[in-house]
């Protein structure tokens, strides 16, 4: 039996990494916290977590020399998971503070519209717009945990081909996107109990398949 895939979790001082490390370990992978570009080398899955505002996050990623490595990784269609702010940063820019972000997915991070309370904090239903293997074994409409006031809006809106799932808090917003081996989720799988751990295990499993495919090639 081979060891679990190696997951590089980008560490740029953006909050709680303990729960992500613990949850990914529970999913059968090995975790390496990556504060430098070199620490990403050799990983089978790259995870960008994060909470908070876009501008300071981008500044820290730049200071750590991680912006280009993340772009290169995704451009090569390597397995990638962005969580919360780690998803929002993939878009062109953020209305939260005007930050120019990674520009990997066309679209912007916008404030949740019509929300009865902000931030949107708590468990809410994630409704799938199309099948994705990361959600295998998780009921459509499952409750997952959110804590945010902004969300990425793809250029094509809620009907954009990248949209995997949507959630309603006031208006509907995009709660999961995917393109190739990139997955981004607005909720926190590491804090979403059994279903969240299931999603992480699925993502780790997909990374293991890709690792084996690459090593066989």
């Amino acid at each position, binding site marked *: 039996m081979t060891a679990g895939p190696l997951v590089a979790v980008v560490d740029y001082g953006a909050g709680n990494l303990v729960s992500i490390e*613990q949850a990914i370990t529970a999913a059968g992978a090995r975790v390496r916290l990556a504060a430098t570009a070199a620490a990403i080398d050799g990983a089978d899955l790259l995870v960008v977590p994060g909470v908070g*505002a876009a501008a300071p996050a981008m500044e820290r990623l730049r200071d750590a020399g991680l912006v280009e490595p993340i772009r290169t990784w995704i451009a090569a269609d390597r397995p990638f998971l962005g969580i919360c702010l780690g998803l929002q940063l993939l878009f062109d820019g953020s209305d939260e503070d005007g930050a120019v972000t990674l520009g990997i997915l066309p679209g912007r991070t916008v404030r949740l519209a019509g929300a009865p309370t902000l*931030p949107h904090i*708590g468990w*809410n*239903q994630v409704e799938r717009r199309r099948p994705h293997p990361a959600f295998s074994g998780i009921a459509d409409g499952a*409750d997952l945990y959110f804590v945010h006031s902004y969300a990425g809006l793809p250029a094509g809106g809620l009907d954009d081909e990248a949209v995997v799932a949507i959630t309603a808090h006031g208006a509907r917003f995009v709660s999961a996107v995917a393109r190739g081996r990139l997955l981004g989720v607005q909720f926190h799988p590491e804090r979403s109990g059994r279903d969240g*751990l299931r999603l992480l295990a699925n993502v780790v499993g997909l990374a293991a398949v890709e690792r084996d495919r690459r090593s066989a090639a």
Partner: protein
Amino acid sequence: MLRRRVIPCLDVANGRVVKGTRFVDLTDEGDPPELAERYAREGADELVFLDISAAPEGRGTLLEVVERTARRAFIPLTVGGGVRSVDDMRDVLRAGADKVSLNTQAVADPDLVTRCAARFGSQAVVVAIDARRVSAGTGDARFPAGYQVVVKGGREPVGLDAVAWARRAVELGAGELLVTSIDRDGTQTGFDTALLRAVTLGVEVPVIASGGAAGPDDFVRAVRDGGADAVLAASIFHRRQVSIAEVKAVMAAAGLPVRAVDPGAAA
């Protein structure tokens, strides 16, 4: 639809969960990580962990207990007690907290709320407000809503109107408020829904109700009458007077949206 949260609270002193009436007469209720895991399994939507041992030498212990707790429960964890700077908040987040709660220090240094929110985002900053009812008939103009803010475990009044302070805390950057009725805390006489209503009408952020839970009906009233987004309780869960599943069943029967407890999860 966003679910209304049920939140067990772990009051921690010297590494143990304790509970007392009105913050005094503390009794030992167990090991924080063990209780956290039990509550996560039984359907808790989130956990609040309050360090009530103010001793500065307890810092290292606290971070170690936070980390052990965070590793056992795959649900969100808010940690409060003793956070006095942005660096303190960073340390608590790095130990595994998802949110940090500021109470006495937010009153003493309101700009701390702003600095923490700027660094980690409003969603990670909870301002905890301990409110005490002002005796009826005093007509004290400082407290138009009838509640004043108290700090240091409810012992010390600071001359602030509780509702005005709630609004100010949100302006400063709080993403959530944890509102405790000091009059009701530990008394099991029900939440102070008038206090909750006064606060929730004035702010857009979610409000967690605290202080006074006796049974499931109190949770319903805190949401329906008080406008709370989440409801917190400690001793009734620690002592198994009522289970999280029972609370949620009564809330659901009252038409409130709650997250289902995993089947077979309740021990």
